[in-house]
């Protein structure tokens, strides 16, 4: 590329001279005839529209791809950390059973959402926690019962799209499907009893200790998975309810229960 101006845009700039020389008298002939102010305004308006379109397209790329990359990276790191913390003491005292917001609790396995599907479970459902590609344990409006509690509802939320999109396929769950919660020392095997395809985002009863709107009417050991629906929006919420079937102790090789094999 020579230093000489061979670029048509250069030529245009040269012909039109300085930016202020755009009076009608300066437009003798040919393509150097300057556009009127209305045409210039229209051109700028068009460029703004193009810019807006590019901005929206970039936002879609950000929401549906980049937040997944970030969330998966952060969740993988946190998962490795939790697993190495579990394996660090060979046979230490029973694990602490109190968790602060943000603490890793264990892993959620749902074979119906894909073989090998595994999501880190963390306390809290605030935006920052869920943005890290985890399933968050509800602490408000109802404080969830933990799987080892004698009764109550272990309620989880995760993103449908973006930020790891861990519950993207939550609608694939059907009654009878297995949902397994893995903690340091136990496999909690739940069976899906009921799904609620669509409800209001104000329907907080779905995560109540005895979920409202479900067929459960007495206290029990339940699990609730919530996310937004339909996909790519936050208009409604969906919920999946299950109840505890059994608890398997974790063996030395962490052999998964039959539902995950």
């Amino acid at each position: 590329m020579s230093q000489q101006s061979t670029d048509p845009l250069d030529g245009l700039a040269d012909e039109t001279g300085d930016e202020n020389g755009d009076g009608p008298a300066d437009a003798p002939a040919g393509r150097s005839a300057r556009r009127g102010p209305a045409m210039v305004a229209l051109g700028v308006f068009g460029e703004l529209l193009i810019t807006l379109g590019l901005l929206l397209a970039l936002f879609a790329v950000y929401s549906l791809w980049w937040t997944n990359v970030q969330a998966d990276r952060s969740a993988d790191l946190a998962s490795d950390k939790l697993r190495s913390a579990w394996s660090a003491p060979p046979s230490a005292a029973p694990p602490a059973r109190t968790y602060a917001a943000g603490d890793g609790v264990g892993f959620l396995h749902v074979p119906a959402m894909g073989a090998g599907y595994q999501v880190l479970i963390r306390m809290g459902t605030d935006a920052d926690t869920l943005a890290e590609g985890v399933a968050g344990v509800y602490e408000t409006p109802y404080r969830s019962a933990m799987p080892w509690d004698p009764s109550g509802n272990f309620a989880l939320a995760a993103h449908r799209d973006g930020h790891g999109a861990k519950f993207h396929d939550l609608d694939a769950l059907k009654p009878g499907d297995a949902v397994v919660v893995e903690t340091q020392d136990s496999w909690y095997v739940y069976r899906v009893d009921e799904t609620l395809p669509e409800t209001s985002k104000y329907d907080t009863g779905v995560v109540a200790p005895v979920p409202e709107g479900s067929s459960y009417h007495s206290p029990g050991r339940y699990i609730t998975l919530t996310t937004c629906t339909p996909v790519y929006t936050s208009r409604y919420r969906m919920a999946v309810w299950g109840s505890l079937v059994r608890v398997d102790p974790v063996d030395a090789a962490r052999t998964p229960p039959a539902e995950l094999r």
Partner: protein
Amino acid sequence: MYGWIWRHLPGNTLVRAVLALLLVLGVVYVLFQYVFPWAEPLLPFGDVTVDGPEGGAG
């Protein structure tokens, strides 16, 4: 707008193309790093929790 930027970039076409690419990358970086994370909670696409009217995004 874009023509004005192009005319005010220094150098020949190659230099301008490189500078324009750097400008685009810079804008995309600022958008992904600062603008979109700020804008996201304000937009109704990422709420997944059930909560009361006073509850924020989830």
